[in-house]
């Protein structure tokens, strides 16, 4: 009972209830589509927040890992008839290896230099996907076969919804476990003071590489799911704007808050749809909302609202 009352367990419960009840309020497949995309983005953001929010290391290239996971699924299933699950796992392993190799030099960089390093990384991945037209279809993109698990295929948006919802809950659960463990505390210590963390025995470089790989794997798996769900891929998935979009979700939702990442993903995926009524001024309103959020809620939505709520209580 005590564990149920903990904020993180309570949060997981609330997320589960929202996911369970939400379909009752979704009138048609257009809304299902948005909610499924929210789920996919949220999985990426929960992983990315471990890197940016908790460990304090920026990445402007995570869309690259998302796209690599997506293309791994697309290519292995489409061209080599692999089972989608096997392709997804293989993609995640390949991305993990690549992220590890890249992180060793890149995570030695700090601040602006780290931003530039990861930015370059994302751009190189994006160029590769554009250039290797033989296997990726180049700028024209490539179609992707549907998702199947041992011959069973998620036939409609309901099944996709439950699948993504379930995976999001698993992703949040894993992230919460990590955050509330000595590993998570070490990551936050790296954010707070690298020299003090290392004096306490935290291998700073190792933890930075570790969290980079973990966040890349989250992105890769979400990418694989996206590939099968959308049934079509273009290199823009790896693009700079997609990376920025992901970072914005994390920052607006709340740094160092697992649920903040989910809220950020929900907000930034939904907002452009809601703002469609503003027609030509859509981007203007969108930018305005982001600016206002950052001016008045610098720590992001969820942490700010949390501390307001705590102060309200006697």
């Amino acid at each position: 009972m005590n564990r149920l009352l903990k904020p993180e367990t309570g949060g997981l419960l609330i997320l589960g209830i929202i996911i369970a009840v939400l379909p009752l309020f979704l009138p048609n497949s257009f809304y299902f589509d948005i909610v499924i995309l929210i789920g996919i983005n949220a999985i990426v953001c929960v992983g990315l927040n471990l890197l940016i929010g908790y460990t304090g290391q920026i990445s402007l290239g995570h869309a690259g890992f998302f796209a690599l996971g997506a293309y791994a699924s697309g290519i292995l299933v489409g061209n080599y008839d692999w089972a989608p699950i096997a392709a997804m796992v293989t993609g995640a392993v390949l991305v993990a290896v690549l992220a590890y190799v890249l992180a060793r030099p890149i995570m030695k960089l700090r601040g602006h230099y780290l931003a530039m390093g990861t930015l370059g990384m994302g751009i190189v991945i994006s160029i590769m996907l554009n250039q290797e037209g033989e296997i990726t279809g180049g700028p024209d993109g490539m179609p992707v076969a549907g998702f199947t698990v041992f011959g069973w295929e998620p036939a409609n948006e309901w099944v996709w919804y439950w699948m993504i919802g379930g995976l999001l809950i698993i992703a949040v659960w894993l992230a919460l476990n990590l955050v509330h463990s000595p590993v998570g505390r070490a990551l936050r210590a790296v954010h707070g003071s690298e020299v003090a963390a290392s004096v306490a025995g935290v291998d700073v470089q190792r933890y930075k590489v570790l969290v980079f790989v973990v966040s890349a794997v989250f992105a890769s798996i979400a990418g694989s799911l996206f590939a099968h769900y959308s049934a079509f891929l273009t290199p823009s998935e790896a693009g700079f704007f997609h990376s920025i979009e992901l970072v914005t979700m994390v920052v607006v939702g709340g740094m160092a808050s697992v649920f903040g990442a989910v809220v950020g993903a929900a907000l930034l995926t939904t907002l452009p749809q809601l703002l469609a009524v503003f027609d030509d001024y859509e981007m203007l309103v969108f930018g305005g909302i982001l600016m206002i959020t950052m001016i008045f809620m610098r720590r992001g939505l969820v942490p700010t609202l949390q501390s307001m709520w705590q102060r309200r209580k006697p």
Partner: protein
Amino acid sequence: MTMLSVENLGKAFGGVHAVRNLNFSIGKGTIHSIIGPNGAGKTTLFNMITGVYKPTAGRINFKDQDITNLATHQMAGYGISRTFQNLQIFFNMSAVENVMVGGHIKTDSRFMPALFGFLSIRQGERECRARAEQIMCDVGLKDYINADADAMPYGALKWLEIARALASEPEILLLDEPAAGLNPTETHEINDLIKRIAATGITVVLVEHDMKLVMGVSDHILVLDSGRKLAEGTADEIRQDPDVIEAYLGHGRGTA
């Protein structure tokens, strides 16, 4: 028994020799102070002992093991811990979490069990928190256990750094100017705390400018000037050493 010794230790930043040809040794379970004017190389020495800087010459031994080229994060495992002159608090955490980070090497921090929330990890977390709370009570931070670090006053943060350093259960504790910025009452309290830490068998090495504090607590004092050893001895010996008086006060006009 010799706890820590340095042989011909040197550190040059380009052409500047911050520490040069330094030799000394520190015995177990005593309070040692390292004093000297600003720029004498005291903090550089601390940074070399804890692996933050790599020495450009000489070697450092800890209990007969060569630790000269170890990385900083390995030092805690050997039983070496320190505090910082300019505070290095984790301001993104609560006070007790700061101390829990200090207990990192005493806690199970394997990645996979942490990711899947194993019960052994949760158990380890409870024990780690209990130890951290105990240490905070011991050093007099009972009221701040659940406080956010960024909401704590400066004096309490100095104590917090010491609590965090103690959480790794060190054999030797390096304190870099623990009394800097403290008022006389707080300085008096830190004096007591240092004595209490030493009484538990931890060897304390102190860099400090507050001479009253240094002379009061130290069993042994090492004086540095421009990166070299100027003098070594007990408080009384140092107080009467002509070289030390000259380094601190300059030539007396009348005696020249």
